């Protein structure tokens, strides 16, 4: 194996001597299994904008958020057992914006997070435009989730497995959406794949 590129947001690995299906499983895990943070629950306190609540909520969900896999649990794996979640499985964001005399654009930077490290990847993603007198007030809860459940939890934008120059050589390229470093996405994918394989091993009665 050779690391061709590792720029943080993007990683390219040359794989040799592993099966194509195994390499592709890593790619697929990068997309669908590696958890990342995304806004999942929005409590709208006030919305007099032109966007409907459900559309605004959908837009919030699409904002990539910096993810800390160490400190946060997937809600279904968290020990709190609370359907509303706890500080280990959800992060609260607050948005409170009022339209001034000019039409203004509310961006992801206006989302105030309760956790300084869990915040939108970019501050300039437009969320909504407000005209004078319009206002939006909401609480949004971000949670960890998996890409297979909804596209907003996909940690990467690009995940490809392409043929290398030689037979049996593959190149795995992963570009992160910004929530996690690309390298971590791949590592987590491998970890999760290993875990799954282990489960199969146990299920068929093999050694632990």
């Amino acid at each position, binding site marked *: 194996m050779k690391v061709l590129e590792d720029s943080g947001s993007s990683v390219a690995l040359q794989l040799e001597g592993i099966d*194509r*299906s195994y*390499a*592709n499983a890593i*790619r*697929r895990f990068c*997309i*669908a299994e590696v958890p990342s943070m995304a806004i999942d629950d929005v409590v709208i306190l006030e919305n007099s904008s*032109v966007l*409907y*609540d*459900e*559309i605004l909520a*959908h837009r919030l969900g*699409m904002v990539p958020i910096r993810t800390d896999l160490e400190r946060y649990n997937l809600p279904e794996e968290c020990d709190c057992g609370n359907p509303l979640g706890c500080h280990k499985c959800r992060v609260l964001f607050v948005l409170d914006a009022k339209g001034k005399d000019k039409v203004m654009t509310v961006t992801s930077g206006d989302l105030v997070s309760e956790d300084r490290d869990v915040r939108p990847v970019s501050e300039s993603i437009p969320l909504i435009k407000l005209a004078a007198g319009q206002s939006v007030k909401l609480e949004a809860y971000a949670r960890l989730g998996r*890409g*297979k459940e*909804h*596209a*907003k939890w*996909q940690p990467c*934008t*690009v*995940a*490809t*497995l*392409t*043929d290398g120059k030689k037979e049996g050589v*593959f190149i795995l*390229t992963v*570009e992160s959406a910004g929530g996690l470093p690309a390298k971590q996405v791949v590592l987590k994918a491998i970890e999760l794949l290993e875990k799954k394989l282990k489960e199969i091993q146990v299920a068929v009665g093999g050694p632990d």
Partner: protein
Amino acid sequence: MSKQFAASNSWVILSDLLQREGVARQHLNSYNEFVTRGLQNIADEINEVEIETVSTPYKVKFGRVTLGSPRVVEIDGSVSSILPMESRLRNLTYSAPILLEMTIEEEGLPRDTTRQHIGDLPVMVKSELCQLSNRSREQLIESGEDPNDPGGYFIIHGAERVIVGLEDLSPNKILVDAEKLAGATTYKSRVYSSVVGYRSKLELTLKQDGGINVKIPSCPVDLPYVIVMRALGIKSDRDIANAVSPKQEIQDLLEVSFDKASEAPTEKDALVYIGNRVAHGMLEEFRVKRALSTLDWGLLPHLGKTEDRRFDKSMFMGEAACKLLELRLGWIEADDKDHYGNKVIKFAGQMLADLFRTAFRNLVRDMKYQLERTGQKRGGNVVGAAIRTGIITDKLNNAIATGNWGRGKVGVTQLLDRTNYLSTLSHLRRVQSPLSRSQPNFEARDLHATHFGRICPSETPEGVNCGLVKNLALSAIISVSVPSQEVEGKLWELGAKQIRDSDEKLQVEGCRIFMDGRFLGYVDDGERLAKAFRKLRREGQINPSASVLYISPVNDNAYPRIYISLSSGRVLRPLVVVESGRPLLNPEMISKVSGGQSAWRDLVDQGTIELIDANEEENCLVAMGPEDVTTRNSHMELFPAAMFGIAASIIPYPEHNQSPRNTYESAMAKQSLGFSSPTYPISPHVRQHLLVSPQAPVVRTRTLDLLKIDERPLGTNCVVAVLSFEGYNIEDAIIMNKSSVERGMARSFFYRLYDGEAKQYLGGMRDTFEVPSAESNIRGYRGEKFYRLLEGDGVVAHESQVAGGDVVIGRTSPPRFMEEYKEFEIKGPYRRDTSVAVRPSEAGVVDSIFMTENVEGGKMFKVRVRDMRVPEIGDKFASRHGQKGVIGLVVPQEDMPYTAEGIVPDVIINPHAFPSRMTVGQFIESIAGKAAAFRGSPVDGSAFAGESIDEMEKVLRGRGFEPTGREVMYDGKTGKKFATDVFVGVVYYQKLHHMVADKIHARARGQVQMLTKQPTEGRARGGGLRFGEMERDCLIAYGASMVLKDRLLDEADKTEIYVCERCGLIAYYDAKQRKYTCKIDGDQAKISTVVVAYAFKLLLQEMMSLNIAPRLQLKDKV
């Protein structure tokens, strides 16, 4: 390069034209003309009404017609001015009062002049009468309107209705035709002579024996031609023959006609001859009188209905016969009635004029009756009291609301299509043909060469209306009528001679001149006159709408003829004038227009651009572009792509598609969801869709800019791969990327408006809005849970989640018949529940609630429910090339194929969609879309003038891609490279309004029809799914007859009936006597129970009601 430069430049002129005139100009012009002149003319036609009273009769004379501004009269009598948006929201009619000056005249002396309100005229939105016509963009927004709304429609009881353009044969034209029937050819010459509100057809037939017969509507039999001419007062046979033509060959052919007229050699005899046929068995004096009135009123009424017009009529008859015989001799060709020069299109103004004329006549008749009954009292007030404004108001409103124009004319108006912005625009440019859709009419449906630039060659429906419903091309301009006096004057100046002033030489060698169905006279050199006429028109001395056609016949013996048309409703198109091989349009003019210093009209006024109708175009040779211009050309096209209509104009590279595909797309574009109007938050339409994230296409046409489609888009740019996908995209299905869907692609909202108003009933009772309560014994109480969302005022709460059956407007009504209940019910009459509930198969969120008051002063609620529609399996999509398909599978992104760059397609379509359809335009769009994405700027794909594919290929090559658009792709499931490269690009996809959510339906048990006890039909009524004949055949073939019995009898309308075995008729159980009874056999009856379908029982009884005795012969079941 020069080709593109030139083409894109003259486009500016057309763009200016459409920007300034708007797409609904033809409606607005027609309506404005009706308001400024038409109304007055109709009032002048009647002019006065005589009131015959016992003593001193008097007259009421009509003066000036004026119109107020749009307003509403509230229930309390207060008058307030209204805007279109208020009319829509409050279900009002947007109309203005018509005021007519009336003067009472006694013994010839005018007395009292008053202005009387005679009725209300529906106001066309954005016409001169409309409040919006002179508002700026900002003011329009202020008034709650879409600033881009074209207007051109009416608002009747809150509904937007368009009077669709009606195609008609040009009136007063002599059309000759040779009809081959059973080997023999008959020659016919026809004229549809039309005067206001009245049409009379004249037909001349050249019989097999060589005689000419004349058919007039008011005469039951055909008349010999010469007799009609004599009756018109042409005394000598020579004059009759010369009226046809002084040429010997023609006169020879007339001999038979003269022989046949020998029984009526004088004018008197001819009149008696006609009189005998129109007023058989009357006194001779009366017969002659009737004959004359037949000639004055029934024959060619467009030339006048008075005695002094008979000479003109005889000359016109002469020309009709002349053309007929010239055709017989093969000197001229038969006329083509599908030629667009022989068609006019009627718009709102003309249609309303017909309607208003009859309504106004009724009003006057009614007024006369009322005033004569009132007797001696007179004066302005009395006249005012005698006017029932409802006669006009109701007639106009009802006709526009229903499309029922009387005299069998139905479907004249339609509900304005608001599916998306484009469908609205296209609807306003639609033209209907009055031809029957049940007959083939092949030629009338065909595309005709004269449609070029006038009628869209692509946009027409499929099926019965194919070719009969048309759409105006972008370059089409509808003529307005030109006053004839000034043009006539110019003709005399140019050397034309009246018929009477033409000497014999001129009558033999000259050219005949016609103006709008009148035979004006002769001129020695027709071609020169036509040239001079055009010169004057270019100099601005003759109205640009006037057209001239010079016809030099195929045979020199026939007359050359000049036709001048000044009528309204002709379809014109702008062309650049070419003089001695050089187009007059120069870059300087173009830049002035694009800079806004001058307008296209200025170019018309200075003779650079000419408006040409289909007739005049016969005299033109039009070059397609500057590089094609030769000295032979008279004109040059402005922009060839303007030959398309609104809908076809959005197709990129349409010239690369098989033509029916463009037709299909023209139909589908009108069904695609988009951003129909920025007024969507308050749009009062019953059904409305909204695409959440619409996009402007990256591969565009110039028309998109022009029509401002970018501001009201109707689709999404998608990455599309052409690939089969595990059979889930066979038969035109498409695969959609689940992640794309989750990211919001093609997400839309569906809105449905529920409304309820509080009516007032006789006796002062009224509906009330309330939460119906269980305690107050309300009839039809639905159960508490259905009312749970209602608030105190009886209306559902904002943003509440509603499902089928939930009440959104709680309302109770007084009992229907007060008396009915008193006897039986102690508690007195119950109120009824007349609440409005969400449709059974729908759900959503309460979007907006409007509370207003209707004209009757009743409170009115409108509740709009929205439902988010995320693409799902079965939803219909289409590209802009007539390639439609439903979603066959929504695939997780990790399973989708990917390119080496990691691009995962949004949509995968099947390669089999292409070979037979030949939509090469979609391939080019795909490549161009990809190039546009790389270079970061849109691609122009306008028809005939789009950016070339070579350019796109260059961009792709520069980015390291194959110029063919093909790429290496990997299977997402295995990571394996596909054996072949895959064609991937960016294509604009439209979501069509056929969605699974609106159609999905299943039923186990449910409602049955009252009459037949069979399951109801249709989803809205929770109906059953028909187990039809073919399904029945399957079960029989399979030998599963018991299943058949189960489906069609046991689980359907199974019934037991009693049958008397003796008489075979239906018997019954008499509950009082507790015995089975047969009325026929009485005590002898032997009654058995029989199981039949209820529908069969019904059949027996229906037959009995028709006096048929259906007898059943019973046998024991073995």
